[in-house]
Structures are given as C-alpha cells and as structure tokens.
C-alpha cells in the first residue's frame, strides 16, 4: 500500500495517466478545494480592487481589511432562507445551479498546473474543456425557464444566444493555437493540455508571440470571447443588473444563488487557464530562452517565496498603519497573524525540494491571476453592451477575425 502511494512520486506523469487512484483522489480534493478557496478570495479581491478603482475602501469591517468578509458572506448565504417560487418548476429549479457548478468544476480535471500537476491528461483535453464549459449554458437556460418569471426568462434567452455565438469565435481561436502545436518535425499536433504546453516548450516560444501578431490576435479574440462566455462585464447582459434586475438568477436566493456565483468564478478561472495554457506557455517561466542557465533557474524559482514575503510585508505594513486604539486590537493581531502565516508559507517555499516542485504551479497561477485581474479591470471600466451590439461584435467582428487568423496561421505554418 505504501509502495503504491510512494511509487507515484518518482513518476513523471499525472496521477490520472499513471492510474494511481490514491494520488488522483488527493489531487481532486486539492484542486477542488483550491478552487473553492480561490473563489472565496477572488470574491474578496474583486470587491477590494473594484473599491479602490472607485475611490472607496470596500469591505473593512469584518476582519482586518475585510479579510474575513468572504466567510461572513458564506455564512450569511448558507443561513438565508431558500425561496423557491410557487409556480416554479421545482426539479429544474433545483438542478440548474448544480449543472452550472458541475460544468465549471469538471473542467479543472484537465487543467495542467505543471507537467505532472494535473488530475489527469486527456488526449482530447482542450475539446473536453470547451465541451464541458459549454454545458453551463444549459444550467442558465434551465434556471431562467424554471423560475417562471419574465426577467429570468429574458436573461436566459439572452445568455444562451450569447454563449452559443461566442463559443464559435472561441473555438476558432483555439484551433489556430492547436494548429501551431503541429509545427514540429512529425507534423502531429495535440489536443492534450499538457501536450500543448510541451509543444510550446519544444518550439521555444509562447504561442502568443508565435507568428507575431497572429498568436497575439488569436489570444485577444479568445480573451474577449471568454469574457462573454463567462457573462462578465462588459458582456454581462444575462444578469444585467440595471435592466433585468439580476437576469437568470433573479428568483434565486441563499445557497442556490451562491452556487451560481461559485460556478461563475470557477468558470472564470477555467477559461483563464485555457488562455494561459494555449498562449502564455502554461507553467513555463518567463524568458526561458534569453535568461537560461542554472543561475536564472534559481532566480526564477525564488519568485514564489518572495511573492509571499512581499504579501506578508504588506500585511505588516498594515499592522504598523493600524490605528493604535483598543478597538482595533483584535484586527491588528489578526492581520499580524495573517502576515505571519503568509511569511511562513513564503519561507517554506524557499526550501529547495518545495521550491523546485512549486514553481510550475506558481507561474501558472500568476498568469491566471493576471487574467482574473483583467476581469475586475473590465468591470470597473466598461459600460455594458446592448444585445444587438453584442451579437454584432460576436458574429461580425470576432468570428471573421478568428477565421482570418486561422487561415493565415495555416498558410504561414505551411510556408515557414
């Protein structure tokens, strides 16, 4: 049994490929738990960052700098009365948030956090991701229909049309990246998520820079389509607050509503991971070609630790700046404790075996975090598109652009 558990550690494939059920289960729990934690902290970060965009402070009361706010929110949502409208279709109403949640979480099975840090590696990985994430539209349609109310119905009709249209552009952009994976000696591409990153490693280039600006254009198209796909601003028409009150989840409350939110944030992470995997080199560190050698390997592997130390430093700065008043004592202690925890994590990350194993995950998550920040930035900056304009952008701008990029990529790929 112990052998079974330890034998995997020396292998260099994912637990799913190795057929190691123990480690696969561990990975599933770690990844899904991690996603839940990230969603919670995203909730806090979004409110905080948005607040600072908008000259206000955001959550400040619950815990130091509102750090405990997500937990307070979670408790509030869990204890809230769960209302199901009388005329609603009970079963469909009940199952709709679960579909969205399952669709959003299932895709994390194939997301490669590192060459071996994925639950499994499917040879149709990217196809699987696109397919499963497209299932969330079913949940939205069902939620809107089951509520038996006009606003959710319009919201869900909008969103189904929106998601189906943007999937086309998204798929074509993905294809152009997959096309690039086949530009090797054997001429064989791959759909596997890990394979795509390895192809970038072999070709010594992130696909965003490949055939400049073709890769960049494809990524931009994908990045726009993925915002529409996850129903976030400026494409948040399905839940357009000022028009449709809350769109498809108008009638939902408490736990079910929080499941929608959980699904939305998880889906944001998932599509960002696709973008990172396809164009930004997945877990590869920046500048592997220019800054190579063991020295730079060491330098870049120190980044995770320094990041956590910097965060800890911010916390301690906050401790120093906290008003010296008995009311704030617990807050100060809490912030100091949080900073100490972050600092400790940072120190652990300097230990050589940890450092080597963690840096892949770090670079992957850092890139995903960049995309997540973009989401917040969009939300603070842009007004909302109107429905017909949204369709126009999807079908008349993004789709032809994606097709053109695909064709030109194919031609360039054959010629060079």
């Amino acid at each position, binding site marked *: 049994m112990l052998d079974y558990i330890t034998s995997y550690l020396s292998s260099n494939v994912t637990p799913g490929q190795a057929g190691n059920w123990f480690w696969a289960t561990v990975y599933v729990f770690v990844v899904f738990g991690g996603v839940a934690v990230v969603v919670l902290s995203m909730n806090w970060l979004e409110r905080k960052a948005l607040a600072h*965009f*908008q000259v206000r402070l955001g959550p400040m009361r619950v815990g130091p700098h509102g750090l405990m706010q997500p937990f307070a929110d979670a408790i509030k949502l869990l204890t809230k009365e769960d209302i199901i409208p009388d005329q609603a279709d009970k079963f469909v109403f009940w199952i709709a948030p679960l579909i969205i949640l399952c669709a959003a979480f299932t895709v994390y099975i194939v997301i490669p956090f590192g060459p071996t840090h994925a639950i499994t590696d499917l040879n149709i990985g990217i196809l699987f991701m696109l397919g499963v994430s497209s299932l969330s539209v079913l949940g939205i349609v069902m939620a809107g229909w089951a509520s038996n109310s006009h606003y959710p119905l*319009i919201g869900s009709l909008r969103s189904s049309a929106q998601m189906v249209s943007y999937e086309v552009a998204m798929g074509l952009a993905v294809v152009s990246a997959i096309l690039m994976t086949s530009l090797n000696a054997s001429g064989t591409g791959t759909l596997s998520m890990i394979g795509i990153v390895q192809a970038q490693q072999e070709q010594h280039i992130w696909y965003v820079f490949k055939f400049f600006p073709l890769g960049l254009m494809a990524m931009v198209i994908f990045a726009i389509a993925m915002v529409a796909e996850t129903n976030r601003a*400026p494409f948040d028409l399905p839940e357009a607050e000022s*028009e449709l*009150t809350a769109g498809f989840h108008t009638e939902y409350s408490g736990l079910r509503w929080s499941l929608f939110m959980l699904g939305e944030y998880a889906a944001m992470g998932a599509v960002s991971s696709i973008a990172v995997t396809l164009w930004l080199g997945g877990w590869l560190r920046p500048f592997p070609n220019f800054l190579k050698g063991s020295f730079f390997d060491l330098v870049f592997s120190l980044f995770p630790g320094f990041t956590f130390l910097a965060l800890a430093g911010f916390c301690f700065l906050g401790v120093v700046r906290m008003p010296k008043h008995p009311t704030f004592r617990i807050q100060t202690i809490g912030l100091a404790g949080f900073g100490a925890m972050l600092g400790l994590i940072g120190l652990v990350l300097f230990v050589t075996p940890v450092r080597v194993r963690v840096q892949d995950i770090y670079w992957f998550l850092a890139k995903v975090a960049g995309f997540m920040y973009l989401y917040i930035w969009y939300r603070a*900056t842009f007004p909302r598109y109107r429905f017909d*304009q949204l369709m126009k952008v999807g079908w008349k701008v993004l789709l032809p652009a994606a097709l053109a990029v695909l064709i030109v990529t194919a031609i360039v790929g054959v010629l060079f």
Partner: protein
Amino acid sequence: MTDPTTYISHLELGQPDKTYLDTNELILNMGPQHPATHGVLRVILRLDGEKVLGTECVIGYLHRGVEKIAENRTYAMFNPYVDRLDYVAAVSNGLGYCEAVEKLLNVEAPPRARYIRVILTELNRLASHMVWLGTHALDIGAMTPLFYTFRDREEILKIFEKYCGARLTTHAFRIGGCQYETYEGFEKDVKDFLDFVPPKIDEYEELLTTNRIWVERTRNVGKISGADCIALGVTGPVLRASGVKWDIRKAVPYSGYQEFDFEIPTGENGDTFDRYVVRMKEMRQSLRIIQQAVDGLPSGPIMAKVGKVIKPPVGEIYHSIEAPKGELGYYIVSDGSTQPYRVRIRPPSFVNLQALDLMVRGQLVADVIAVIGTFDIVLGEVDR
C-alpha cells in the same frame, strides 16, 4: 409642427401585431421595484422578443399631495415642502417658489441675495447633473463614474451644509431674499471648488466620451426631434440636445441671470449621446456663471422688505425657472389670505416623461433603461 395628440400612447395590451400572425408578445412590468427606474417609476413594456412595441408609464407611487398641502399652509410654511419635490436639486425648487411668491407680492430680492441665489442654484445644477451622470452611467453598466461623481458632489453638499445647515433638502432661500448671510470663507470655498471641479469633469469625460461602448450605447438611441420636443412640452437639456436653443435663463431672465455671460449648449441629433454632451457642457457653463457671480458678489442687504405675515394681493401668477431638468413652473392663485388658494407645480420630469413612449418605440429593452436615465427624472417631482 406635429400634432401632439397623435403621440398619446396606445399600448393595445395583448393585441397581436396585425401585419403577421405573431408569436406571443411579452408584457414586461418594469418597476416600481426596479434598480434602473430611478425610484418608483413603473413602465409596462410590450415586447416582441427584445424589441419594444409600446410603453405605458404608471406613476403616482410617490404621490404625497404636495399641491394640496400648499392650500393648508402659509406661503412661508410651504417653502420647505418644495425642496422635497426634486430632492437632488432642492435649491432650484426653492428659488422658483420664492421668486414666484415675490412676483405675487411685487417685491424683488436685493442684488446680493440674487447673487447668492445664483451661486447656490448653479452649484445645485452641478450637483444634480453629477447625480444624473453617475446614475445614468450605472444604468448603462459603467459603475465607476457613479463613485467619482458622488465624491465630487460631496464638495458641493459641504458648501450647502456650511451655508444653511442642510445638505439635501436645503431650504436655502426665503421669500424676499436669503435668510442667512454667507458664512466666513464662503467665497474661498466656492473658488476652491471652481478650481477643483474642471479636472474632475475632464475625468468623467475621459471615462465616457470616447469610450466606444458608451458611444455605441447612447448614439442614435432615444432620438427625438426639436419639433416633437416642443409638441410634447419637453424642456431642459433634452430639448436643447434636439437643437432648440431654449433656456429660460436667457429667454426670460430671472434672478439677475441677464447680468452673466454664458452660453447655451445645444446638440444636433437629439439622441442620448447629445443629451450627455449637452449636460457636460452645461456643467462647464455653470462653472462660468458661478465664477462671475462670486467675483462680482455685491455687498448690501440680503432681504427685501417683506412683512412678517405674507399676505399677497388677490391674483394669480405663473413663474418658471430653468431647473437642472428643464422648465420648473409654479402657478399660484392667491385669494388674498395667508394661504395660497391653489398651487400648481409644473415639474420638468413629469412633462419630459411623456416623450418616453415616442423615444423608445421600436428600440430594445436596454434602450429603455438608457432613455429613462437620459431624462434625469426624479420621481418625487413626477408624482409630487
């Protein structure tokens, strides 16, 4: 000129589109509890998919019988009530009422009082436009301008608070002038504000004017021609954006507006974007007026000779001013007693709202929100 009677809304609820056998039309009840109807406006929309086939405004959810209350209050006692009509531009309301009663009494406020009135009214216009900009942008989906405008409006409210002790429902003026002399440092505060605000307005414009999505969402949305505006009695920035150069401050000057040099910005297309541009320009013109007023603030009394008991002669008077939202008129009938016999208020929002059906017919649900926002309605004023 178009016949205004043709614009009376016929919602024809439930009747199918006669041109073709149709799918079911959707009747959508927008409001009174809706985040984007600016209070308790209820709009019943008849939709074909997302296209608006007709609208019906249902108002009165905020009706408080203000006009009836006036008949049981003395002239001075009614003054605070008008602040509650358009509560984001309370100073303008008070100015209109005070001027109307003064006209009835045949007195005129002294110059210093007039100047103070102009400064405060124009500051209030700025505040009102800032509230409009923030909420309008929020309706269209841009969150951030709301917080910027409210941050800057705070400075105006601080001046109000220092002047008369209240921030929102100020009750700043009295019949015959102003009750309060300006406080110590009033001019400095106003001048500081004049330096503070122009960059902020630039900031709003930077966020919105060249923002592609904003322009696409507002251009050619809710178009209305100048003739239609006149036919429907629409006034204020909505009218001016349609190219009609009509501003009561210029046309029928009151409170000494003829002494100031300012322009009336107008638009051309009469769409939502033009209304936005007109209001932004108006904010800058207001700054010009304030600058001139505060530079030339005369000294002297602030109160004309008005008796303790206000008892106007028998007669009737209509007086209108240019409120931030349009023409605000007071029609007062006096029977010679201490209480008005009848007060009728012509609120700009109420009249402007008539144009909603004309402006949104054939457009999309999202445009209804944009158009309601562009009217800058305040339901306290619509329902009175």
